[in-house]
């Protein structure tokens, strides 16, 4: 039988660079911004949402162990749709911190990865809410996830190019298509999960 847990591949706009690529001032700035968003998310989160937040963090990390084609998924679209923009921040922070401690993405990059993943969550939440009424929860979740993840695939390539101080051209033609392909995998997973949750616990996806 093919082992279920195998080394994962590229994740969506989640920079797998080791530490040392990004200058200290950038790391500090990203940690500062991410810290503010996480603090706001924790402060504003109602106590009863702590449980689903912790579980979603665990589920996101567990799912990273499952290789899907060339990639692994992060569930950022689903986290955003279920938890909203503010409560998503501490979730993606914990997941990125655990990844960093296990050598999967640098520890100094936890701030940057948290910001990237949080922007995916917030974008997916906003687009899902805008589309849900018109086209239904399943399709809205799929479209929101694909659109947002494809956009951050562009942003992540631009960030990598900016921090190494080079033209984004090479990064846009190599990294971005692979991230967009991964977005095309994550979008139907999110759509399917939202459709299933709509049947099981409809109040979660309203």
């Amino acid at each position, binding site marked *: 039988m093919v082992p279920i847990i195998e080394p994962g591949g590229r994740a969506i706009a989640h920079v797998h*660079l*080791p530490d*040392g690529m990004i200058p*200290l001032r950038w790391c500090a700035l990203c940690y500062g911004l991410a810290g503010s968003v996480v603090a706001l998310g924790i402060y504003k989160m109602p106590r009863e949402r702590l449980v689903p937040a912790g579980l979603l963090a665990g589920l996101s990390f567990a799912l990273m162990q499952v290789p899907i084609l060339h990639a692994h998924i992060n569930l950022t679209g689903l986290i955003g749709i279920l938890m909203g923009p503010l409560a998503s921040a501490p979730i993606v922070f914990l997941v990125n911190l655990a990844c960093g401690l296990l050598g999967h993405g640098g520890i100094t990059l936890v701030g940057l990865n948290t910001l990237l993943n949080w922007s995916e969550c917030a974008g997916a939440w906003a687009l899902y809410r805008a589309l849900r009424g018109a086209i239904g929860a399943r399709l809205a979740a799929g479209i929101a996830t694909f659109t947002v993840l494809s956009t951050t695939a562009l942003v992540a390539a631009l960030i990598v190019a900016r921090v190494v101080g080079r033209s984004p051209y090479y990064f846009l033609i190599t*990294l971005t298509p692979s991230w967009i392909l991964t977005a095309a995998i994550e979008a139907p997973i999110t*759509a399917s999960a939202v459709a299933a949750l709509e049947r099981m616990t409809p109040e979660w996806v309203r």
Partner: protein
Amino acid sequence: MRVEEILEWSLTANTALHRVDPATKLGCLSATLLALLLVRDPWGALLLSLPYLIGALAARVPWGSMARLSVVPLGFLGAILALMLPTGVPAREVALYAARGFTALLATLLVAFTTPFNALWSSIASLMPGRLAEMALLFHRSLYGMIDDLNGLLRAARMRGARPGPRLIGVLVATLLARSHESARRLMASLEVRGARGRVRPLRRPRPSREDAAWTLLTLLSIALALLRGV
């Protein structure tokens, strides 16, 4: 990432590095990473890897597992460095990034392999504010169950002839979430009635040992040498 290999080895092995307090290891790792970002000389960056190379040899960390876990980050690093060269980045700068990447990855993986993840995670959670610490502990508690459940559900689906495509994985995600929610909610309620308020207390007070002192000294020595070589 093959997280189960790290978890298993870090929990079952008993080496000198396992006896170093997780907080000490985290402190030394942070100092090394900070020094890495300050050092501008590739040899200086490699000097910072010395304590971790010595530690890995002394702890007899499984090199095969280390190599497998390094494939993705080193592949990503290699791809970025390969993309840098044609854009006119000086070779010395590329060498610096390579040395920094190698050292940081070795240091992080060594700490992960020689520190049980529960100890590492509680050390970090004890520094977090109350609610974030609670969420961190819930994350840690649910993690192993989630990985086991996900494996079980995928295996069951495969045995029934289903291919684990996006639709199936989506349904599994929803099932796992709904199934885990009730038990986690009960756990939180039971903690609350026992007076838990989210403050994480370490199970034992850290007592600096000879291993702690030796590890700190070795790391600080490498940092001093690297910084002297060129910031």
